């Protein structure tokens, strides 16, 4: 009797959730639907992280992206004008540039996939990853880590500046 494993089934299910939701984000006409589909993508990605034994990243993905970013996105959508309208839409703009960009990035990705050397790794017992991540962040990668927070701060200030009424007039 062969030992069938659920692992690939779960993987493909999660991958399907992720990809289908991502398509929903891109193709939905309703911006609110896009945001909700984004939740599916994020949760699917979190699931994939779990399969990679990266439990901390998975949980933080949900905590930060779903609990924080997605909520803020929904919040922003709710505050936009004419939110009561049923027909709020994110129409697709600039199809030709998009196609070019898709072709370029797609080409790069296909090339990357074909040229990468796909090594199989021994399946290891899942070990807690928090210590490693913490140490890496606060020793080896402390500069990028701090720089990232500066970038976020700049983005925050920029957002405030953009939405100030008196500056825009």
């Amino acid at each position, binding site marked *: 009797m062969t030992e069938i494993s659920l692992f690939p089934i779960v993987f493909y299910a999660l991958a399907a959730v992720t990809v289908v939701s991502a398509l929903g984000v891109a193709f939905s006409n309703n911006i609110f639907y896009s945001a909700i589909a984004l939740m599916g993508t994020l949760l699917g990605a979190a699931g994939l992280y779990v399969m990679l034994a990266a439990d901390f990243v998975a*949980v933080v993905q949900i905590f930060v992206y779903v609990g924080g970013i997605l909520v803020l996105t929904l919040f922003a959508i709710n505050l936009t004008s004419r939110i009561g309208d049923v027909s709020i839409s994110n129409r697709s703009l600039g199809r030709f540039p998009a196609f070019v960009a898709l072709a370029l990035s797609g080409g790069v990705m296909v090339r990357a996939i074909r040229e990468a050397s796909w090594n199989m790794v021994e399946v290891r017992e899942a070990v807690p990853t928090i210590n490693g991540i913490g140490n890496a962040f606060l020793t080896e990668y402390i500069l990028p880590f701090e720089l990232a927070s500066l970038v976020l701060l700049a983005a925050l200030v920029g957002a405030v500046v953009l939405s100030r009424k008196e500056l825009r007039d």
Partner: protein
Amino acid sequence: MLQEFIDSLIADGLFGGLPRDVAYLIGMLAAGALVVFGFVLNVAGITTFVERRVWARIQSRVGPNRVGPQGVLQWLADGLKLLMKEEAIPFAADARLFKLAPFIVTIGFITAFVAMPFSSALIVADLNLGILYITSMTSLVVVGIMVAGWASNNKWSLIGGIRAAAQIVSYEIPAALSIFTVILITGTLSMQSIIQQQSWLPWDWFIFHNPFTFIGFFVTFVALLAEGNRTPFDLPEAESELVAGFVTEYSGARYLFFFLVEWGNLYVISAILVTLFLGGWQVPMIPVITDSAFGLNLLQALTFVGKSYFGVILIMWIRATLPRIRVDQLMTTCWKYLLPISFANFMGTALWVLIWPDGFLPAELLMTALGFGLVGYFFYRVAYHLRRSGAQITLSPLS
């Protein structure tokens, strides 16, 4: 825990020749169903009954006392009634998202119970990331609330949803910071390890570990109240302002789901507090009872649920007493007071752990004395007011 249990079942040949993964899947689903139907739903339901009775006592009423002895089956009757009710979906609502919202909320609530410890053995999965997992899963609830608010196509619902989002996102920061204060002491995120580092003696509880965790307990309590949309932070569904906030348009079973989550969350809030600050399921080793694993676990579970329900009743008491605060006051409380306080707590605890890595017993004893002193003073004041008003007190919870 669960894994070992299923392994033993497989060894007993219970699953026949089924593959290991499938056996795990079945085991997990069975355990999940057991937890959800055997515990979560009942906890939420019974909490509504307890809340109504506690309120009734506070408000000098009788409360539900007809369905079953002392009305204990009232929650079942209410739940069944709501399940059998016709569900009205507003014509202008976005029906798909309208139907989806209660599920998102319920998922966010029920999955939190996976890492909830009830005794040293009674836990679905002692996740390595336990507390972080619970906080991140409960943040799904706010997504559901926002979807509900938007999909209802009702301005009151929309305002409720927006309020909920603003409130929960804001209060997540002080809540998380205060939770991390405890993590600094334990060095682990696992719920079981956090509890194991405390003991049944009050001065070993993390609330009395040092002055910062003592304040941190109250900060966490306030922040979690706000995240659970409880009075005085129940702005998303403020019935006198927003009709019913994000649940205005809901009826029947979907309404039931929202309220299941609302009342179930009471228990989640208290359980988090009990785990982090109040010693969890730690019990003294009473020889006769704790000799057997069953007796030990039973006692631990009773202790944990008992402590948690103490918190639940405290929250109910607060809800019955305090008025609701306004949106600007809500934001001020969070950003101007709670956030700086929790930052200070975080830094303070970090220093404390640096200086006394194993804790500092005199400070712990002092904090314990202070804590019990505060409780004693509180009851002294209560007794003073009761004497002054000449109120008649009935101590029996039954009537």
